[in-house]
Protein backbone atom coordinates (compact mmCIF):
# COMPACT_ATOMS: atom_id res chain seq x y z
CA UNK A 1 0.00 0.00 0.00
CA UNK A 2 2.71 2.42 0.97
CA UNK A 3 5.81 1.84 -1.04
CA UNK A 4 5.78 2.73 -4.69
CA UNK A 5 8.26 0.52 -6.47
CA UNK A 6 9.40 1.75 -9.82
CA UNK A 7 12.40 2.59 -11.87
CA UNK A 8 13.22 5.51 -9.64
CA UNK A 9 14.21 4.68 -6.07
CA UNK A 10 12.33 6.64 -3.42
CA UNK A 11 13.91 7.89 -0.22
CA UNK A 12 12.48 7.10 3.18
CA UNK A 13 10.90 10.57 3.41
CA UNK A 14 9.32 10.29 -0.02
CA UNK A 15 7.75 6.97 0.93
CA UNK A 16 6.51 8.57 4.12
CA UNK A 17 4.97 11.43 2.12
CA UNK A 18 3.02 8.97 -0.02
CA UNK A 19 1.78 6.77 2.79
CA UNK A 20 -1.82 5.58 2.42
CA UNK A 21 -4.22 7.60 4.54
CA UNK A 22 -5.61 4.41 6.09
CA UNK A 23 -2.36 3.83 7.97
CA UNK A 24 -2.86 7.25 9.57
CA UNK A 25 -6.44 6.28 10.44
CA UNK A 26 -5.19 3.08 12.06
CA UNK A 27 -2.68 5.00 14.19
CA UNK A 28 -5.41 7.43 15.32
CA UNK A 29 -7.70 4.53 16.19
CA UNK A 30 -5.05 2.78 18.30
CA UNK A 31 -3.77 5.96 19.94
CA UNK A 32 -7.28 6.75 21.16
CA UNK A 33 -8.41 3.21 21.99
CA UNK A 34 -5.48 1.93 24.05
CA UNK A 35 -5.53 4.71 26.70
CA UNK A 36 -9.31 4.33 27.01
CA UNK A 37 -8.86 0.69 28.03
CA UNK A 38 -5.66 1.27 30.02
CA UNK A 39 -5.77 4.91 31.12
CA UNK A 40 -2.90 6.65 32.85
CA UNK A 41 -3.84 8.58 35.98
CA UNK A 42 -4.72 12.19 35.18
CA UNK A 43 -6.48 14.64 37.42
CA UNK A 44 -8.10 17.57 35.62
CA UNK A 45 -7.31 20.96 37.16
CA UNK A 46 -9.95 23.61 36.62
CA UNK A 47 -8.98 26.50 34.36
CA UNK A 48 -10.18 29.99 35.40
CA UNK A 49 -13.32 30.07 33.16
CA UNK A 50 -14.47 26.66 34.48
CA UNK A 51 -13.82 27.64 38.09
CA UNK A 52 -15.73 30.89 37.53
CA UNK A 53 -18.86 29.10 36.39
CA UNK A 54 -18.65 26.49 39.13
CA UNK A 55 -18.21 29.14 41.83
CA UNK A 56 -21.13 31.16 40.58
CA UNK A 57 -23.53 28.22 40.47
CA UNK A 58 -22.27 26.94 43.81
CA UNK A 59 -22.81 30.23 45.62
CA UNK A 60 -25.80 31.76 43.83
CA UNK A 61 -28.85 32.53 45.99
CA UNK A 62 -30.79 29.39 46.88
CA UNK A 63 -34.09 30.70 45.54
CA UNK A 64 -32.60 31.18 42.09
CA UNK A 65 -32.84 28.40 39.51
CA UNK A 66 -30.21 27.05 37.18
CA UNK A 67 -31.41 27.08 33.59
CA UNK A 68 -29.68 24.71 31.18
CA UNK A 69 -30.22 25.24 27.49
CA UNK A 70 -29.34 22.06 25.62
CA UNK A 71 -28.34 23.73 22.36
CA UNK A 72 -26.54 20.82 20.73
CA UNK A 73 -27.42 17.80 18.67
CA UNK A 74 -25.91 14.30 18.49
CA UNK A 75 -23.03 15.42 16.24
CA UNK A 76 -21.29 17.25 19.11
CA UNK A 77 -22.74 15.29 22.01
CA UNK A 78 -19.43 13.56 22.81
CA UNK A 79 -17.97 16.88 23.95
CA UNK A 80 -21.06 18.54 25.35
CA UNK A 81 -23.18 15.82 26.91
CA UNK A 82 -20.75 15.31 29.85
CA UNK A 83 -21.19 19.03 30.62
CA UNK A 84 -24.98 18.74 30.84
CA UNK A 85 -24.64 15.68 33.08
CA UNK A 86 -22.06 17.37 35.35
CA UNK A 87 -24.20 20.51 35.66
CA UNK A 88 -27.26 18.43 36.56
CA UNK A 89 -25.29 16.53 39.20
CA UNK A 90 -24.02 19.79 40.66
CA UNK A 91 -27.50 21.30 40.77
CA UNK A 92 -29.25 18.24 42.21
CA UNK A 93 -26.49 17.66 44.79
CA UNK A 94 -26.78 21.24 46.02
CA UNK A 95 -30.59 21.15 45.77
CA UNK A 96 -30.95 23.89 43.17
CA UNK A 97 -34.05 24.06 41.06
CA UNK A 98 -33.27 23.26 37.45
CA UNK A 99 -35.04 24.23 34.24
CA UNK A 100 -34.14 22.68 30.91
CA UNK A 101 -34.88 23.92 27.43
CA UNK A 102 -33.61 23.02 23.96
CA UNK A 103 -33.22 25.40 21.04
CA UNK A 104 -32.81 22.53 18.56
CA UNK A 105 -35.34 19.74 18.39
CA UNK A 106 -32.55 17.14 18.69
CA UNK A 107 -31.49 18.69 21.99
CA UNK A 108 -34.73 17.27 23.44
CA UNK A 109 -33.64 13.65 23.29
CA UNK A 110 -30.21 14.49 24.66
CA UNK A 111 -31.61 16.50 27.55
CA UNK A 112 -34.00 13.66 28.34
CA UNK A 113 -31.11 11.18 28.21
CA UNK A 114 -28.99 13.29 30.61
CA UNK A 115 -31.94 13.77 32.97
CA UNK A 116 -32.69 10.03 33.04
CA UNK A 117 -29.06 9.20 33.80
CA UNK A 118 -28.60 11.72 36.62
CA UNK A 119 -32.07 11.15 38.06
CA UNK A 120 -31.36 7.40 38.19
CA UNK A 121 -28.08 8.03 40.04
CA UNK A 122 -29.73 10.16 42.72
CA UNK A 123 -32.90 8.08 43.00
CA UNK A 124 -30.88 4.87 43.44
CA UNK A 125 -29.45 6.19 46.73
CA UNK A 126 -32.56 8.10 47.87
CA UNK A 127 -34.06 6.88 51.12
CA UNK A 128 -37.18 9.04 51.07
CA UNK A 129 -39.47 10.89 48.67
CA UNK A 130 -37.67 14.15 49.58
CA UNK A 131 -34.32 12.70 48.53
CA UNK A 132 -35.63 11.70 45.11
CA UNK A 133 -35.45 13.93 42.08
CA UNK A 134 -38.99 14.72 40.97
CA UNK A 135 -40.10 16.25 37.70
CA UNK A 136 -42.08 19.43 38.25
CA UNK A 137 -40.66 19.93 41.74
CA UNK A 138 -36.87 19.68 41.51
CA UNK A 139 -36.69 20.29 37.80
CA UNK A 140 -38.87 21.17 34.86
CA UNK A 141 -37.99 20.06 31.40
CA UNK A 142 -39.81 22.73 29.45
CA UNK A 143 -38.71 21.35 26.12
CA UNK A 144 -38.34 23.00 22.75
CA UNK A 145 -40.13 25.61 20.73
CA UNK A 146 -39.44 27.62 17.63
CA UNK A 147 -38.36 30.25 16.62
CA UNK A 148 -35.53 31.37 18.90
CA UNK A 149 -37.10 34.77 19.50
CA UNK A 150 -40.19 33.18 20.98
CA UNK A 151 -38.15 31.24 23.49
CA UNK A 152 -35.39 33.68 24.37
CA UNK A 153 -37.56 36.78 24.72
CA UNK A 154 -40.80 35.11 25.81
CA UNK A 155 -39.23 33.35 28.81
CA UNK A 156 -38.22 36.74 30.17
CA UNK A 157 -41.90 37.67 30.37
CA UNK A 158 -43.65 34.45 31.38
CA UNK A 159 -42.25 30.98 30.91
CA UNK A 160 -45.64 29.25 30.90
CA UNK A 161 -46.71 31.38 27.92
CA UNK A 162 -43.82 29.99 25.93
CA UNK A 163 -44.23 26.43 27.19
CA UNK A 164 -47.91 25.70 27.94
CA UNK A 165 -46.92 22.03 28.38
CA UNK A 166 -43.57 20.57 29.40
CA UNK A 167 -41.65 17.88 27.51
CA UNK A 168 -43.73 15.15 29.17
CA UNK A 169 -47.01 16.84 28.28
CA UNK A 170 -47.89 18.17 31.76
CA UNK A 171 -49.55 21.60 31.96
CA UNK A 172 -46.76 23.87 33.19
CA UNK A 173 -49.18 26.16 35.07
CA UNK A 174 -49.98 23.29 37.40
CA UNK A 175 -46.39 22.29 38.22
CA UNK A 176 -45.16 23.13 41.75
CA UNK A 177 -41.90 24.64 40.45
CA UNK A 178 -43.83 27.19 38.38
CA UNK A 179 -44.71 28.98 41.64
CA UNK A 180 -41.01 29.67 42.15
CA UNK A 181 -39.72 30.06 38.62
CA UNK A 182 -41.92 32.35 36.54
CA UNK A 183 -39.43 34.18 34.34
CA UNK A 184 -35.77 35.23 34.16
CA UNK A 185 -36.08 37.15 37.45
CA UNK A 186 -36.13 33.77 39.18
CA UNK A 187 -33.13 32.41 37.29
CA UNK A 188 -29.59 32.73 38.69
CA UNK A 189 -27.79 31.77 35.53
CA UNK A 190 -28.58 30.24 32.17
CA UNK A 191 -25.90 27.92 30.85
CA UNK A 192 -26.12 27.48 27.11
CA UNK A 193 -24.38 24.25 26.10
CA UNK A 194 -23.94 24.61 22.40
CA UNK A 195 -22.15 23.37 19.33
CA UNK A 196 -22.95 26.62 17.52
CA UNK A 197 -23.10 30.36 18.23
CA UNK A 198 -26.28 29.92 20.29
CA UNK A 199 -24.70 31.29 23.51
CA UNK A 200 -24.17 34.59 21.65
CA UNK A 201 -27.84 34.60 20.67
CA UNK A 202 -28.75 34.13 24.35
CA UNK A 203 -26.54 37.14 25.13
CA UNK A 204 -28.06 39.23 22.34
CA UNK A 205 -31.68 38.50 23.29
CA UNK A 206 -31.97 37.36 26.90
CA UNK A 207 -29.05 39.26 28.43
CA UNK A 208 -29.35 42.50 26.50
CA UNK A 209 -33.05 42.85 27.19
CA UNK A 210 -33.51 41.16 30.58
CA UNK A 211 -30.03 41.26 32.11
CA UNK A 212 -29.94 37.46 32.39
CA UNK A 213 -26.56 36.05 33.43
CA UNK A 214 -25.25 33.65 30.78
CA UNK A 215 -22.72 30.85 31.17
CA UNK A 216 -21.40 28.95 28.20
CA UNK A 217 -20.49 25.36 27.51
CA UNK A 218 -19.11 25.00 24.04
CA UNK A 219 -17.26 22.73 21.66
CA UNK A 220 -13.54 23.33 21.54
CA UNK A 221 -13.97 24.49 17.93
CA UNK A 222 -15.92 27.56 19.05
CA UNK A 223 -14.17 28.13 22.37
CA UNK A 224 -11.34 30.31 21.07
CA UNK A 225 -13.89 32.62 19.39
CA UNK A 226 -15.95 32.93 22.57
CA UNK A 227 -13.12 34.26 24.73
CA UNK A 228 -14.07 37.79 23.68
CA UNK A 229 -17.42 37.34 25.45
CA UNK A 230 -15.69 35.93 28.50
CA UNK A 231 -13.32 38.88 28.59
CA UNK A 232 -16.18 41.38 28.30
CA UNK A 233 -18.06 39.75 31.18
CA UNK A 234 -21.00 38.80 28.95
CA UNK A 235 -20.29 35.16 29.82
CA UNK A 236 -20.01 34.12 33.44
CA UNK A 237 -17.60 31.26 32.94
CA UNK A 238 -17.09 28.88 30.08
CA UNK A 239 -16.56 25.13 29.67
CA UNK A 240 -14.47 24.52 26.56
CA UNK A 241 -14.77 21.09 24.95
CA UNK A 242 -14.25 17.75 26.62
CA UNK A 243 -11.43 19.20 28.70
CA UNK A 244 -13.84 21.80 30.14
CA UNK A 245 -16.32 19.01 30.86
CA UNK A 246 -13.61 16.97 32.62
CA UNK A 247 -12.60 19.95 34.76
CA UNK A 248 -16.20 20.60 35.77
CA UNK A 249 -16.72 16.91 36.52
CA UNK A 250 -13.72 17.00 38.83
CA UNK A 251 -15.04 20.05 40.70
CA UNK A 252 -18.44 18.39 41.08
CA UNK A 253 -16.82 15.13 42.23
CA UNK A 254 -14.88 17.01 44.92
CA UNK A 255 -18.01 18.89 45.98
CA UNK A 256 -20.07 15.71 46.20
CA UNK A 257 -17.29 13.97 48.13
CA UNK A 258 -17.41 16.81 50.67
CA UNK A 259 -21.15 16.17 50.99
CA UNK A 260 -20.59 12.40 51.48
CA UNK A 261 -22.10 11.61 48.10
CA UNK A 262 -19.45 9.13 47.07
CA UNK A 263 -21.37 6.81 44.80
CA UNK A 264 -19.70 5.60 41.60
CA UNK A 265 -20.60 7.43 38.40
CA UNK A 266 -19.07 7.46 34.93
CA UNK A 267 -17.32 10.77 34.32
CA UNK A 268 -16.99 10.59 30.56
CA UNK A 269 -14.98 13.80 30.24
CA UNK A 270 -12.36 12.73 32.78
CA UNK A 271 -12.34 9.22 31.33
CA UNK A 272 -11.36 10.69 27.95
CA UNK A 273 -8.38 12.75 29.10
CA UNK A 274 -5.75 10.00 28.67
CA UNK A 275 -6.85 9.35 25.10
CA UNK A 276 -7.07 13.05 24.40
CA UNK A 277 -3.50 13.60 25.61
CA UNK A 278 -2.18 10.69 23.54
CA UNK A 279 -4.06 11.86 20.46
CA UNK A 280 -2.74 15.42 20.77
CA UNK A 281 0.82 14.14 20.96
CA UNK A 282 0.15 11.93 17.92
CA UNK A 283 -1.23 14.85 15.90
CA UNK A 284 1.77 17.02 16.83
CA UNK A 285 4.07 14.21 15.70
CA UNK A 286 2.08 13.86 12.46
CA UNK A 287 2.60 17.55 11.73
CA UNK A 288 6.31 17.44 12.61
CA UNK A 289 7.01 14.29 10.58
CA UNK A 290 4.91 15.62 7.68
CA UNK A 291 6.93 18.84 7.69
CA UNK A 292 10.32 17.11 7.92
CA UNK A 293 9.32 14.88 5.01
CA UNK A 294 8.08 17.87 3.01
CA UNK A 295 11.27 19.91 3.49
CA UNK A 296 13.54 16.89 2.97
CA UNK A 297 11.90 15.95 -0.34
CA UNK A 298 11.75 19.60 -1.47
CA UNK A 299 15.47 20.04 -0.86
CA UNK A 300 16.18 16.83 -2.77
CA UNK A 301 14.07 17.98 -5.71
CA UNK A 302 15.68 21.41 -5.81
Amino acid at each position, binding site marked *: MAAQSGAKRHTFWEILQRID*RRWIYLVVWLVVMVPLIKPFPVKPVASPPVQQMFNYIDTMPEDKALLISVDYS*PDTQAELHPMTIALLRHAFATRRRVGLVATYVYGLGLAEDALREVKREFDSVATSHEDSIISGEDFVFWGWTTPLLTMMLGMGEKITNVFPVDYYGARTESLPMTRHVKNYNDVGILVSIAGSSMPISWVAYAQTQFGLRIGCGTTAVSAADFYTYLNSGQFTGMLAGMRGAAEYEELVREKMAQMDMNWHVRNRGTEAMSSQTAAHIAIILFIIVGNIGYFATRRRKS
Partner: protein
Amino acid sequence: MKRKLPLLIVLVTGIFGVLTYIIPHPVVQTTDSVIRNDILRIIGAFSLVLGIGSILRHHFIKIKRKSENWGYSWITVVALFVSAVIGLFGGIDPTRPGILPTHIGGFSFHIQSLFTGLIVPLGSTMFALLAFFMASASYRAFRARNFEATLLLISAFILMLGAMPLTRLLVKELPSFAEWILAVPNTAAKRGIGFGISLGILATSLKIILGIERGWLGGGE
Protein backbone atom coordinates in the same frame (compact mmCIF):
# COMPACT_ATOMS: atom_id res chain seq x y z
CA MET B 1 -47.53 42.02 -6.51
CA LYS B 2 -45.51 38.78 -6.46
CA ARG B 3 -42.35 40.61 -5.38
CA LYS B 4 -43.70 43.88 -3.97
CA LEU B 5 -46.01 42.32 -1.40
CA PRO B 6 -43.29 40.19 0.25
CA LEU B 7 -40.91 43.18 0.22
CA LEU B 8 -43.56 45.35 1.87
CA ILE B 9 -44.17 42.68 4.53
CA VAL B 10 -40.43 42.52 5.25
CA LEU B 11 -40.27 46.32 5.57
CA VAL B 12 -43.25 46.57 7.93
CA THR B 13 -42.36 43.59 10.13
CA GLY B 14 -38.70 44.63 10.17
CA ILE B 15 -39.45 48.17 11.33
CA PHE B 16 -41.86 46.84 13.96
CA GLY B 17 -39.17 44.40 15.13
CA VAL B 18 -36.78 47.31 15.66
CA LEU B 19 -39.42 49.38 17.46
CA THR B 20 -40.10 46.64 20.01
CA TYR B 21 -36.64 47.22 21.46
CA ILE B 22 -36.88 50.98 21.79
CA ILE B 23 -40.56 51.59 22.61
CA PRO B 24 -41.59 50.10 25.96
CA HIS B 25 -45.26 51.14 25.48
CA PRO B 26 -47.64 48.29 26.51
CA VAL B 27 -49.40 48.30 23.13
CA VAL B 28 -46.13 47.64 21.30
CA GLN B 29 -44.97 45.08 23.85
CA THR B 30 -48.28 43.20 23.91
CA THR B 31 -48.43 43.11 20.13
CA ASP B 32 -44.83 41.88 20.06
CA SER B 33 -45.68 39.17 22.58
CA VAL B 34 -48.63 37.96 20.48
CA ILE B 35 -46.54 37.97 17.31
CA ARG B 36 -43.78 35.93 18.96
CA ASN B 37 -45.87 33.50 20.98
CA ASP B 38 -48.68 32.85 18.54
CA ILE B 39 -47.97 33.99 15.01
CA LEU B 40 -44.26 33.25 14.54
CA ARG B 41 -44.45 29.97 16.40
CA ILE B 42 -47.27 28.57 14.27
CA ILE B 43 -45.85 29.85 11.00
CA GLY B 44 -42.43 28.52 12.06
CA ALA B 45 -43.90 25.09 12.73
CA PHE B 46 -45.32 24.98 9.22
CA SER B 47 -41.88 25.68 7.75
CA LEU B 48 -41.24 22.02 8.48
CA VAL B 49 -43.28 21.37 5.33
CA LEU B 50 -40.51 22.89 3.21
CA GLY B 51 -37.83 20.59 4.61
CA ILE B 52 -39.80 17.36 4.71
CA GLY B 53 -41.47 18.09 1.37
CA SER B 54 -38.13 18.67 -0.33
CA ILE B 55 -36.62 15.48 1.07
CA LEU B 56 -39.59 13.35 0.09
CA ARG B 57 -39.79 14.89 -3.37
CA HIS B 58 -36.07 14.30 -3.94
CA HIS B 59 -36.30 10.64 -2.96
CA PHE B 60 -39.57 9.91 -4.77
CA ILE B 61 -38.10 11.38 -7.96
CA LYS B 62 -35.00 9.18 -7.50
CA ILE B 63 -37.18 6.11 -7.02
CA LYS B 64 -39.44 6.96 -9.95
CA ARG B 65 -36.53 7.54 -12.33
CA LYS B 66 -34.56 4.65 -10.90
CA SER B 67 -31.53 6.92 -10.60
CA GLU B 68 -28.19 5.65 -9.32
CA ASN B 69 -28.53 4.07 -5.83
CA TRP B 70 -32.31 4.62 -5.91
CA GLY B 71 -32.88 1.62 -3.66
CA TYR B 72 -31.42 3.49 -0.70
CA SER B 73 -34.09 6.17 -1.10
CA TRP B 74 -36.62 3.62 0.12
CA ILE B 75 -34.71 3.40 3.40
CA THR B 76 -35.11 7.15 3.93
CA VAL B 77 -38.79 7.19 2.99
CA VAL B 78 -39.73 4.13 5.06
CA ALA B 79 -37.65 5.26 8.06
CA LEU B 80 -39.27 8.70 7.93
CA PHE B 81 -42.82 7.34 7.84
CA VAL B 82 -42.25 4.63 10.45
CA SER B 83 -40.54 6.95 12.94
CA ALA B 84 -43.16 9.67 12.39
CA VAL B 85 -46.00 7.17 12.98
CA ILE B 86 -44.30 5.88 16.15
CA GLY B 87 -43.79 9.43 17.40
CA LEU B 88 -47.19 10.80 16.42
CA PHE B 89 -49.29 7.88 17.66
CA GLY B 90 -47.03 6.34 20.30
CA GLY B 91 -46.67 9.51 22.36
CA ILE B 92 -43.62 11.14 23.90
CA ASP B 93 -43.73 10.21 27.56
CA PRO B 94 -43.62 6.41 28.04
CA THR B 95 -45.75 6.79 31.17
CA ARG B 96 -48.53 8.39 29.07
CA PRO B 97 -48.67 6.08 26.05
CA GLY B 98 -50.50 7.10 22.90
CA ILE B 99 -52.91 5.01 20.87
CA LEU B 100 -50.06 2.97 19.36
CA PRO B 101 -48.28 0.48 21.64
CA THR B 102 -44.53 1.17 21.63
CA HIS B 103 -43.19 -2.09 22.97
CA ILE B 104 -43.30 -5.77 22.09
CA GLY B 105 -42.61 -7.77 25.22
CA GLY B 106 -39.53 -6.23 26.78
CA PHE B 107 -38.44 -4.53 23.56
CA SER B 108 -39.42 -0.86 23.50
CA PHE B 109 -39.48 1.11 20.25
CA HIS B 110 -40.56 4.36 21.80
CA ILE B 111 -39.50 7.68 20.14
CA GLN B 112 -36.75 8.19 22.76
CA SER B 113 -35.45 4.68 22.01
CA LEU B 114 -35.31 5.55 18.32
CA PHE B 115 -33.41 8.70 19.26
CA THR B 116 -30.78 7.06 21.46
CA GLY B 117 -30.57 3.87 19.40
CA LEU B 118 -30.54 5.32 15.88
CA ILE B 119 -30.16 9.11 15.67
CA VAL B 120 -27.41 9.47 18.29
CA PRO B 121 -25.05 6.76 17.01
CA LEU B 122 -25.54 7.69 13.36
CA GLY B 123 -25.25 11.46 13.85
CA SER B 124 -22.33 11.36 16.22
CA THR B 125 -20.34 8.74 14.28
CA MET B 126 -20.67 10.68 11.03
CA PHE B 127 -19.04 13.64 12.74
CA ALA B 128 -16.48 11.42 14.48
CA LEU B 129 -15.09 10.64 11.01
CA LEU B 130 -13.75 14.20 11.02
CA ALA B 131 -11.11 13.17 13.58
CA PHE B 132 -9.52 10.92 10.96
CA PHE B 133 -9.76 13.42 8.13
CA MET B 134 -8.24 16.08 10.36
CA ALA B 135 -5.36 13.78 11.35
CA SER B 136 -4.68 12.97 7.71
CA ALA B 137 -4.83 16.65 6.71
CA SER B 138 -2.47 17.58 9.56
CA TYR B 139 0.06 15.09 8.23
CA ARG B 140 -0.25 15.99 4.57
CA ALA B 141 -1.19 19.65 4.34
CA PHE B 142 -0.04 21.54 7.39
CA ARG B 143 3.29 23.05 6.35
CA ALA B 144 5.40 25.69 8.09
CA ARG B 145 6.18 27.40 4.79
CA ASN B 146 6.69 30.91 6.19
CA PHE B 147 6.83 32.91 9.41
CA GLU B 148 3.05 33.37 9.71
CA ALA B 149 2.32 29.67 9.24
CA THR B 150 5.04 28.79 11.75
CA LEU B 151 3.50 31.18 14.26
CA LEU B 152 0.12 29.54 13.75
CA LEU B 153 1.66 26.10 14.29
CA ILE B 154 3.51 27.10 17.46
CA SER B 155 0.34 28.63 18.89
CA ALA B 156 -1.58 25.45 18.03
CA PHE B 157 1.08 23.21 19.64
CA ILE B 158 1.05 25.23 22.86
CA LEU B 159 -2.73 25.02 22.98
CA MET B 160 -2.80 21.29 22.27
CA LEU B 161 -0.23 20.53 24.94
CA GLY B 162 -1.43 23.12 27.44
CA ALA B 163 -4.98 21.83 27.28
CA MET B 164 -4.01 18.42 28.64
CA PRO B 165 -3.83 17.72 32.37
CA LEU B 166 -0.75 15.51 31.95
CA THR B 167 1.48 18.27 30.51
CA ARG B 168 1.07 20.18 33.77
CA LEU B 169 3.35 17.56 35.32
CA LEU B 170 6.02 18.11 32.66
CA VAL B 171 5.98 21.91 32.30
CA LYS B 172 4.10 23.54 35.15
CA GLU B 173 3.54 26.88 33.40
CA LEU B 174 2.29 25.46 30.09
CA PRO B 175 -1.46 25.41 30.90
CA SER B 176 -1.33 28.99 32.22
CA PHE B 177 0.55 30.11 29.13
CA ALA B 178 -2.02 28.40 26.89
CA GLU B 179 -4.79 30.11 28.84
CA TRP B 180 -2.97 33.45 28.43
CA ILE B 181 -2.79 32.98 24.64
CA LEU B 182 -6.54 32.39 24.58
CA ALA B 183 -7.38 35.23 26.94
CA VAL B 184 -5.10 37.93 25.50
CA PRO B 185 -3.74 37.76 21.92
CA ASN B 186 -6.49 35.38 20.74
CA THR B 187 -9.16 37.60 22.31
CA ALA B 188 -7.71 40.67 20.59
CA ALA B 189 -7.69 38.99 17.17
CA LYS B 190 -11.15 37.44 17.54
CA ARG B 191 -12.62 40.70 18.77
CA GLY B 192 -11.24 42.55 15.76
CA ILE B 193 -12.74 39.90 13.47
CA GLY B 194 -15.95 39.95 15.54
CA PHE B 195 -16.43 43.65 14.88
CA GLY B 196 -16.34 42.93 11.18
CA ILE B 197 -18.88 40.10 11.55
CA SER B 198 -21.24 42.23 13.68
CA LEU B 199 -21.10 45.07 11.19
CA GLY B 200 -21.77 42.55 8.42
CA ILE B 201 -24.87 41.25 10.25
CA LEU B 202 -26.02 44.82 10.79
CA ALA B 203 -25.59 45.71 7.12
CA THR B 204 -27.33 42.52 5.95
CA SER B 205 -30.28 43.04 8.32
CA LEU B 206 -30.70 46.60 7.10
CA LYS B 207 -30.45 45.55 3.46
CA ILE B 208 -33.12 42.88 3.98
CA ILE B 209 -35.50 45.25 5.75
CA LEU B 210 -35.04 47.98 3.15
CA GLY B 211 -35.46 45.55 0.26
CA ILE B 212 -31.93 45.99 -1.11
CA GLU B 213 -31.06 42.35 -0.46
CA ARG B 214 -33.56 40.28 -2.41
CA GLY B 215 -31.81 36.94 -2.78
CA TRP B 216 -34.31 35.33 -0.43
CA LEU B 217 -37.12 35.93 -2.95
CA GLY B 218 -35.57 33.24 -5.13
CA GLY B 219 -35.87 33.13 -8.89
CA GLY B 220 -38.93 33.68 -11.02
CA GLU B 221 -41.25 36.66 -11.12
